[in-house]
């Protein structure tokens, strides 16, 4: 006859199981923490139910864990929700940064001459060389990416009842929005670089520095977000 398992050991068994689940969850840290807290409570309930029936602690812990399933299966069950949360955050963040960064660039090219100009941006006094081609393309990319971002946010929120999106599609769409943001930022930074070389006197330097810093920051974050979206999508598939 084996000695009863101490309570601390039973808890350690459950925590070890949760650690294995945690290692396989991919998504926002806060949501992962909430999932683990919820699983821990459920496991303790399942354990308590068996202990109350007189089941030996080691067997009760094993049975409670067995009831929840093996860690890869449990983590896979949450993958869709975690991917949706990741996609929603990325799309929302990028959609939110669009207008302020756009305004910073507008100020960079119009700042020295005042923000109000008649005519399209490529006719502004400080417009960079090649702006007549770049700006319409950027506007088209921003419009498509903005629509995609709003669709991702809607389909991963309460509106998901009416606007469902496949679990694998949301992170892909969010990654596409991030790629579009990176394209816009790289284009604007490229235009700025050419402007610095060809017509440095036309720039409002403080506004240009602020716009460049904002775009560089978003470029970095969008690159990281793209990677997170791809990882989330892989976890769902």
């Amino acid at each position, binding site marked *: 006859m084996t000695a009863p398992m101490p309570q601390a050991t039973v808890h350690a068994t459950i925590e070890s199981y949760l650690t294995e689940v945690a290692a396989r969850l991919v998504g926002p840290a806060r949501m992962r923490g909430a999932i683990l*807290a919820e699983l*821990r*409570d*459920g496991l303790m309930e*399942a354990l308590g139910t068996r202990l109350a029936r007189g089941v030996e602690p080691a067997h009760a812990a094993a049975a409670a864990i067995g*009831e929840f399933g093996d860690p890869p299966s449990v983590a896979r069950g*949450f993958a869709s929700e975690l991917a949706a949360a990741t996609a929603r955050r990325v799309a929302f963040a990028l959609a939110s940064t669009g207008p302020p960064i756009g305004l910073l660039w507008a100020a960079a090219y119009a700042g020295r001459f005042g923000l109000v100009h008649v005519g399209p941006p490529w006719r502004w006094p400080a417009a960079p060389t090649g702006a007549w081609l770049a700006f319409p393309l950027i506007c088209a990319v921003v419009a498509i990416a903005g629509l995609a971002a709003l669709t991702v946010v809607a389909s991963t929120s309460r509106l998901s*009842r009416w606007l469902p999106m496949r679990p694998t599609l949301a992170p892909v769409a969010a990654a596409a929005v991030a790629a579009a943001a990176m394209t816009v930022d790289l284009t604007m930074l490229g235009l700025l670089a050419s402007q610095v070389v060809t017509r440095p006197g036309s720039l409002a330097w403080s506004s240009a520095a602020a716009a460049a810093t904002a775009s560089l920051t978003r470029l970095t974050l969008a690159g990281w977000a793209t990677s997170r979206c791809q990882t989330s999508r892989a976890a769902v598939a």
Partner: protein
Amino acid sequence: MEDAQGLKGHLDVLLLAALENGPRHGYAIKEALRTGSNGRFDLPTGTIYPALHRLERAGLISGSWSVVDGRRRRSYQLTAGGRRKLDGDRTDWHQFAGAISALLGPSPRVATS
């Protein structure tokens, strides 16, 4: 478990129904489904929690945290939208089940030797 597989497509309405009489936490919902079906629907626990998260994201249920026995517990309750969804799905189910029952006829008699 075969019954659990057959529940695919009906899980959402069963989870909503389990919350009809008040808030419950995830494990209590699982147990309510098991005991309410006389043990036929003993769903894998790993299925219940993600489904609850999906229903919450859709605004059909709302979750809130509390502390019980020193650990965090998330309990869920129906929202107004969830209650409407439950009512609608319940009506649809009764009409569907009634039509199927009418076509299948009465239960077969138990064979006696």
